[in-house]
């Protein structure tokens, strides 16, 4: 899957699940999702489950953190690394 496809899938999921009714333009690729309190702990668990199921890999325990989940950019980068 191309980077642009991964980005589109992640973006659509975040918009639909956590920002319903919001202006899609407001969700920039570098918008801070965890630090900006859009994703709380339960939401993060759902995002992790979604990424694992959608892209067919498993997070190591220590990989579930802001370093990989704080923005769409970081999520896409992480998915690509895990798929490599």
């Amino acid at each position, binding site marked *: 899957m191309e980077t642009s496809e991964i980005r589109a899938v992640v973006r659509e999921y975040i918009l639909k*699940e956590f920002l*319903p009714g919001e202006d899609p333009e407001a969700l920039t690729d570098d918008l801070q999702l*965890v630090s900006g309190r859009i994703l709380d*702990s*339960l*939401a*993060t*668990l*759902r995002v*992790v*489950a979604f990424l*694992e*199921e959608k892209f067919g890999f*498993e*997070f*190591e*325990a*220590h990989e*579930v*953190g*802001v*370093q990989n*989940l*704080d923005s769409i950019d970081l999520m896409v980068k992480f998915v690509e690394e895990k798929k490599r």
Partner: protein
Amino acid sequence: MDFSISEEQKALRDSIVQFARKELNQNLIERDREQQFPRDLWTKCGEMRLPGLAVPEEYGGLGLESLDTAMALEALGYACEDSGLVFSICAHLLPCVVPIVKYGTEEQKRRWLPGLSNGELIAANCMTEPNTGSDAFAMITKAVPDGDGYRITGTKTFSSNGPVADLLVLFALTDAEKRYHGGVTTFLIPRHSEGITVSKKIEKLGLRTSPFGEISLDNVYVGPEAILGGVGGGSTLFAHSMDWERTCLFAFNVGVMERLLEKSVGYARTRQQFGKPISQFPAISAKIADMKVRLEAARLLVYRAAWKLTRSRTVSMDASIAKLFTSEALLTSSLDAVQIHGGYGYSTEYQIERALRDSVGGTIYSGTSEMQRNIIASWLGL
């Protein structure tokens, strides 16, 4: 979809029921009254490898998969009337031993799992703090780097098995900024490490033979070999533990519900009032029918979540549904059992009132009913 139980599963259940009835129910009224943890019975359970049900055989356990583990704990809950002892086994196995199986290094597994499976060692999970309960990741216990290891300072409370534990599976902040999102790490800490103080056990309403207490850590040094699941892996490890606990611990509750149902049926069929058995009064028979419905519904929810445990990345919502329904169903059925037994149910001698006291905690531990509803709502996108 196949709902049949295999011959192996029947044999497992039968062996546990036979063992528990023969070995685990003596002097229970006194033990409950005195809040005595039965270490000798724990050792006997260890001989059956009950504390290591889900541990692979190569590390000394029974090597059961998740659904079989749930069925085994259901059988134990059914036949062992010491729910405190069963709770202690669950509090040891599900949030302590299972994470070592899943996330432990080979060295950690070799060091800890055999003793934790055969009854030599007892583990206690240390998450809750005096000012954190449902908001668990608001913890203040800190682990500060020191050379290759860490120094940990803080206080944990309501730690099941804490006063009798040999191993603490403890969560501490390694990055206060990140907290849930990579800032919490899990440590395996021998209980007798320098700087650890365990308070006397805390008195409580039910599950009185299962001790829980407060644990203080004052600058406790742990080496790198104590880190479980990597630095910052605490939230994932905790979520995995809760999936197992909210499923398999409540399988034990299903077993208790079946025992209470059988006792209530037996009593209602033999207790005579107004010249006939009280089972012939619809007010009684309807209560018992409702107990049966709750039992069967709870069992299905628990079995489905348990089946998914080793087949899905997370069973968070299924586990919360199973936990919420089963804990509340047990509480309701326990109250019904007391009511059906009347004055005898209210008295200690009949051992029904203890089941009611034991059932109250289920809507609080492993996440309150209110938190389970929050989790379910979150998975629904609310």
